[in-house]
């Protein structure tokens, strides 16, 4: 179990951001950016040319300072820029960095981490969850969305946790029998990925609408009212804006995260992390 971790440390052991032109994209990866746009590519973690196998259970997050974190083997949290690995005292399902806290889902509980000197980080469970499977998503204004699923029963539920008048408030937003794999919030719209569809849920109007129909199965979605919507399929990364729609990247199982005007892309099978800056320009060119 430790061997892939050692490999990962070895391969991700690059500290300084490099320009994409200085470091080639791994084989099978293609990036097409609009000409004359301000979009800039940065390698946060240059990828390996060799494809890495056994990368299952790899989760991806970006903290408040824009540093990438990888959840590995459900047991380790790894910051490749600082070369820090934290071991957790228990397995986790998913993690997210929100309002200065590492939030995690583990064994039917939502909680946060506490530093433990010379020992694994301690998970402090806080909220009991009705199901085992769960994913966490950051909404606007540090709102937390929790997607809980019971695949055996075909039930998917979306909860929202937010601060209101100094108090913590939780709401049940949506239930469905159609599989939901990812979601993001933009303004008052919650976008959800279901198969090849992007569904929009207007929380003000309490209505649901079809936003986009894609030719391939969608795996990930990221959005922002100022920038637009980014999505990832098994092989591509694309953008849906108010004016433009474009698929600008071909890569194997890419994972994406949008933070302000930057899109972070994890090339899972090559363990590289790219950061595309000024991505709102996708809608202009």
């Amino acid at each position, binding site marked *: 179990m430790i061997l892939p971790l050692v490999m990962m440390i070895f391969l991700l052991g690059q500290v300084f951001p490099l320009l994409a032109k200085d470091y080639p994209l791994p084989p099978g990866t293609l990036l097409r950016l609009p000409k004359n746009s301000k979009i800039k590519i940065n390698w946060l973690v240059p990828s390996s040319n060799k494809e890495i196998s056994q990368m299952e259970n790899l989760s991806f997050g970006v903290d408040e300072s824009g540093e990438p974190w990888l959840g590995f083997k459900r047991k380790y949290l790894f910051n490749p820029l600082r070369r820090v690995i934290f071991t957790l005292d228990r397995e986790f399902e998913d993690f997210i960095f929100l309002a200065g806290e590492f939030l995690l889902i583990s064994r039917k509980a*939502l909680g946060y981490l506490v530093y433990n000197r010379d020992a694994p980080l301690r998970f402090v469970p806080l909220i009991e969850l009705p199901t085992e499977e769960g994913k966490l998503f950051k909404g606007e204004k540090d709102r937390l969305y929790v997607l809980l699923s019971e695949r055996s029963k075909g039930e998917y539920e979306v909860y929202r946790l937010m601060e209101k008048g100094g108090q913590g408030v939780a709401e049940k937003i949506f239930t469905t029998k159609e599989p939901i794999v990812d979601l993001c919030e933009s303004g008052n719209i919650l976008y959800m990925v279901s198969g090849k569809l992007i569904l929009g849920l207007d929380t003000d109007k309490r209505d649901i609408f079809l936003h986009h129909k894609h030719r391939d199965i969608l795996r990930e979605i990221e959005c922002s009212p100022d920038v637009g919507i980014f999505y990832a399929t098994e092989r591509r990364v694309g953008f849906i804006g108010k004016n433009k729609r474009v698929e600008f990247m071909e890569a194997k199982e890419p994972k994406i995260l949008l933070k302000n005007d930057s899109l972070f892309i994890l090339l899972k099978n090559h363990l590289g992390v790219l950061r595309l800056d000024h991505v709102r320009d996708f809608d202009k060119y």
Partner: protein
Amino acid sequence: MQKRVLSLLFVLCLIPYFKVLAQQQYCIDASEYNNWFCLNVKGAQSFCNANRFHGPFPDYNTCEWNRVSALPGDVRWQRMTKCIPCRLYSPKPDGPSAPSTGEHLFLEEQKISKKIEEYRLDLKNRGCGDSALKFFDNVVKTRRDYGTNLKDYALVLDANYQIIVDSCENKKIFHRIIEEEKRKRESLAKNKAILLSKIKRVTGQMLNVNSTYPSLNPILINLKREAPLVDGKDPLILKKIVNWHKEELESSLIDWLSEKTQLPLDKLEKALSVGSLIREAVIEPVFQYLEDVKSALGNEAKWEALALRSLDVVSDADRKIKSEARETLAREFLDRIPKVGGLLSKFYSAGETTLEILEDHK
């Protein structure tokens, strides 16, 4: 006077002897020590031929100091070696300018001992923990494994010292990073409302770090029983979502069929929609007509009108099918649609129906 001169000559004659006495040098006798290793330690055969004597030293105290401090941690060395006058070993022990093999070994041992002390002190100064120092001491203890091969021993010491230094430095860096993170978290906690912490405070739940779930905040468990903001299981919403999926599926199938048959998308879409068009053009007007007929029973005037309309219904349907068919379909196109099963067969049957009806209306 003569007596005095004789006395002086006597004293002068004795001076060389005094000089010898004054220059009495001492050597470390390691014969017992070497023998013990030679006889008892496997792989330490080099001790069998090792020099018995090390030195010389100008006096006993210097010799003894060197002997004790040469291998301070080695009980056998301390017990089995001793300082003896060098003349007992050799009338002319080698001087420091031309050291013997044994003496060379001894000097090397001294150098290494000094290095060990320096390393140990350096590790302490670097703030390495007890575990690092213990690790280093264990490396030092491997001295016996190397016999007279002090070069290898020195290399092992150097390498391990470097590893320990790196490890200490890394730990310090990690510790600093962790401390920085901790500070950041603490300042964030002070200055920023933290969502989960607030929920904990509001609900007044006792936090049990041992994860006994009954003590956790059951807020989502309770919410599970409540109605959501938008219920995807509501028949109307469910129908919407299912229809979107169905539309997506149909368009995917058309793409797929188009790729397989190499027909233009627009033609294929029209071809596949002819089935439903026929239903709309023929079946629905006819059924509507029959409904009207039922309501017209007993009403002679209406009945007459319906009788006239019946001809129009049939001819309208016929005309509509023929014109649509001419525009959209060619028989060879439909023949090229592959035979498919399962879900896809629905779309294929639409084509077949079209074909059969076209045949009838030629």
